[in-house]
């Protein structure tokens, strides 16, 4: 099937009207020596039924599991309302809303999303999305460089290592220098930040809750850079935490960025996700990405439109704030619908996540596996397990994704795992894991 609704006669008539003899005549500008006659060497065409069966089979080659892992991707419950509404084809088959008169659906929803994210982060402006949390951090740093023209960045080791790797790539491409500050005991120390600062520091980056699940003292970190012309960037990879914890903005952040996949988007083997970038008002004209603004139409009716487009690539070209064009629009729509449905209940959901992770902590402590760090957590924490690889593999065989091994990125954290709980790790699921783990440890 190729979805071409034409008959042979249509094709012949159209060629006639154009004034050529065959379809190949329309390709005469391509030098003869490079023209192909045989299409492309891909497998033979499948009917829709066969494609359905093939993909279903491939999807079933992935083991379904209960997930006790986060690390920047959180398997939350996605209410069916989100799919039903976001799957309306007026939303998902639309293009970027460059013709606002026929895009008020998309534009209104994104305006709402910008508002909700500003309220949660404590910031004044949020854009319409970035590719993911890692690239939103990279672009937050580039924005910071545009702001104060400095090129050194101080980042805590407790920031997600995948994000730090992406930051490192963008940093190399932009000749930035990156200094990493340690986090012994799983938390960033303001004294260490202060010691790494100098007049050339563009930005300080911490994550909260950090990669170990520990809640950082953002206020103390902000205090340690007070007075320097340095921006504080706070990364959030589990945005549900902002429903329970004080907003990074209220604690001194200049820029808040990260991942909003937890809001209404599936874990989908890593993508598409939903980078978000929020900042104080003074960054407005330096923001990358799309911004939706409120305005009026020719009759004075409220209307929404893409605005401050002169920042963007299609107008400013080589002097744009970023090259970003297509972003993660539908993912932002899904997040907005999710947040609309949750309302203030989002805080109850956050408390539930925290308590469930507490339940898991207790269950593991009883098996002689207490948390490694003595610090406040949200819904993720680190444990140390003897024979960690064997234990993790055995549990995987039994249908449980038991955490993320940390030793690769943190050599001191030998035999350690990063565990997470969401509302999908119900008490029976936790009990089941604990029972399996007990059996595995005994053997």
């Amino acid at each position: 099937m190729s979805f071409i609704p034409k008959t042979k006669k249509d094709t012949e008539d159209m060629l006639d009207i154009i004034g050529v003899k065959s379809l190949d005549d329309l390709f005469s500008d391509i030098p003869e020596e490079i023209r192909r006659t045989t299409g492309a060497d891909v497998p033979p065409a499948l009917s829709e039924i066969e494609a359905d069966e093939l993909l279903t089979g491939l999807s079933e080659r992935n083991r379904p599991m209960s997930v006790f892992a986060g690390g920047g991707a959180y398997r939350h419950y996605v209410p069916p309302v989100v799919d039903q509404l976001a799957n309306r084809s007026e939303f998902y088959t639309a293009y970027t809303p460059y013709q606002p008169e026929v895009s008020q659906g998309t534009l209104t929803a994104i305006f709402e999303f910008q508002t909700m994210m500003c309220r949660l982060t404590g910031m004044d402006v949020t854009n319409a999305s970035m590719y993911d949390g890692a690239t939103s951090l990279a672009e937050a740093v580039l924005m910071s460089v545009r702001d104060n023209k400095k090129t050194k960045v101080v980042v805590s080791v407790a920031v997600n290592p995948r994000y730090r790797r992406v930051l490192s790539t963008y940093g190399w491409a932009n000749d930035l220098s990156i200094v990493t500050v340690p986090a012994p005991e799983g938390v960033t120390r303001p004294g260490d930040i202060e010691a790494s600062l100098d007049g050339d520091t563009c930005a300080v980056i911490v994550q909260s809750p950090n990669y170990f699940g520990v809640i950082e003292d953002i206020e103390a970190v902000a205090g340690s850079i007070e007075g320097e012309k340095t921006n504080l960037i706070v990364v959030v990879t589990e945005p549900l935490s902002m429903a329970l914890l004080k907003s990074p903005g209220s604690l001194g952040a200049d820029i808040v960025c990260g991942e909003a996949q937890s809001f209404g988007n599936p874990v989908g083997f890593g993508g598409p996700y939903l980078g978000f970038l929020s900042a104080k008002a003074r960054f407005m004209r330096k923001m990358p990405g799309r911004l939706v603004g409120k305005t009026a139409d020719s009759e004075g009716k409220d209307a929404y439109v893409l605005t401050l487009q002169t920042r963007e690539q299609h107008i400013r070209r080589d002097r744009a704030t970023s090259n970003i064009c297509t972003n993660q629009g539908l993912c932002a729509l899904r997040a907005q619908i999710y947040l609309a449905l949750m309302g203030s209940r989002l805080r109850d959901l956050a408390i539930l996540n925290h308590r469930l992770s507490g339940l898991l902590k207790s269950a593991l402590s009883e098996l002689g596996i207490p948390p490694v760090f003595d610090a406040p957590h949200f819904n993720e924490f680190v444990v140390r397990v003897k024979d960690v690889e064997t234990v993790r593999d055995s549990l995987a065989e039994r249908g449980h994704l038991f955490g993320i091994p940390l030793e690769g990125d943190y050599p001191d954290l030998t035999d350690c795992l990063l565990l997470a709980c969401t509302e999908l790790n119900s008490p029976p699921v936790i009990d089941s894991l604990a029972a399996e783990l007990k059996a595995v440890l005994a053997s």
Partner: protein
Amino acid sequence: MKTLFDIDTPGVSGWEPPRWDIPGKEDIPKKYLNDGIDLPDVGEVDVVRHYTRLSTMNFGVDSGMYPLGSCTMKYNPKINEKTASLPGFASLHPETPNTLSQGALQVLCELSEYLCRITGMDRFSLAPAAGAHGELAGVMVIRKYFEKKGEKRPVILIPDSAHGTNPASVTMCGFDVKEVPSSETGDVDVAALSDMMSDQVAAMMLTSPNTLGLFDRNILEISRMLKDHGALFYCDGANLNAVMGKAGITDMGFDLMHINLHKTFSTPHGGGGPGSGPLGVIEKLEPFLPVPLVDRDGDAFFLDNARPDSIGCIHAFYGNFLVCVKAYTYIRMLGPDGIREVAEHAVLNANYLMRRLMDDYDLPIDRSCMHEFVLSDRGIGNDVTTNDIAKRILDYGFHAPTVYFPLLIAGAMMIEPTETESRATLDRFVEVMREIKRETDTDPELVKTAPHTTAVGRVDAVTAARKPILTHDAAE
């Protein structure tokens, strides 16, 4: 225009979490906790009505023809939506060990292989989340390649007709942009290019077919010139829909390219994404591709991070996987002939429209086009502009074409019907364009104040930029 904030009824319940009885130790120190959050409370029925109503104010490919030049707004097959939402894909956590995610890794691995066979490239990375992301990764590969060679080449050449993401990507990686002029017939001005060639030039970026919808007749000469100077040739693959199955990209002389899965490979545009912008390279550039790549050892698939010369990671995980599932599904349904037919009918439809519209509208470059063509508002009377015409098209149930791009054609209207439109739809579009042309003579005010039948009238973008209001709270 009611927003969610206008229907906020504090205390009303939209969704309720389960009421499990879990002993709660309040073990987060109070100083970290907020007092509550300020999100609107709306009942489920009203949330559903609100977004249903919003959807009726949107126009998608499923609403009508969307001839946006350079965007390839083809029909989005619904089978793709089904396969991408299969639980084995959608609920798969990215930290799942390779051995337990073989199905997902197979999709990624085979998709990269198909893209290689369609284009001639030797290896693809599926990590870039959009075309511009692929461009940026490509420019990074170019930089790493010359760094490894020890050659200092600060310049990348870009035609004046290029999409804005090209120069923006180049400057995001520390290079200088030099603009190459186009000739009157729409090809790159080869004489001017020759003057700009030097050992300072790292690469040239070219969209092929170009952004005017024309195939550059000097492409082999251009690629030879670059090769002779030791420079690389980057293909912006946004227009792949015009040539896939009819010519190989590497045969044109390109060394690397990005593809837009949300254009050529039918994945939906989503109102601004998510897309996917795979980066493909010839063999000598493979070492520099972003990690991880997806590889296979017979029938065992795995993520390969052991690539010391890689530019590094450009995405937290592996790219927009569920978007890749859609493109994979589409390619498996097209087969070898289907791929060729897509290009043939994309080009047929564009030439047909061009032939039938060129008597009513100015055609700046009168050449056989590829999958899109450019008209202009030259000769339209009564001060009616391209913008006015675009707005009036909306009243007739079509989406407007791309306007004012490429920059080198004043008042450009770029029309790309794609291959998924029937002849009847194309004929209707011609009728509408002719009717509007008549209106510019008989009732120009109607066109200048359009649109009239859409959810809102012409939107004031000027005030929106002068006095930006970017949140509901800023508006209050």
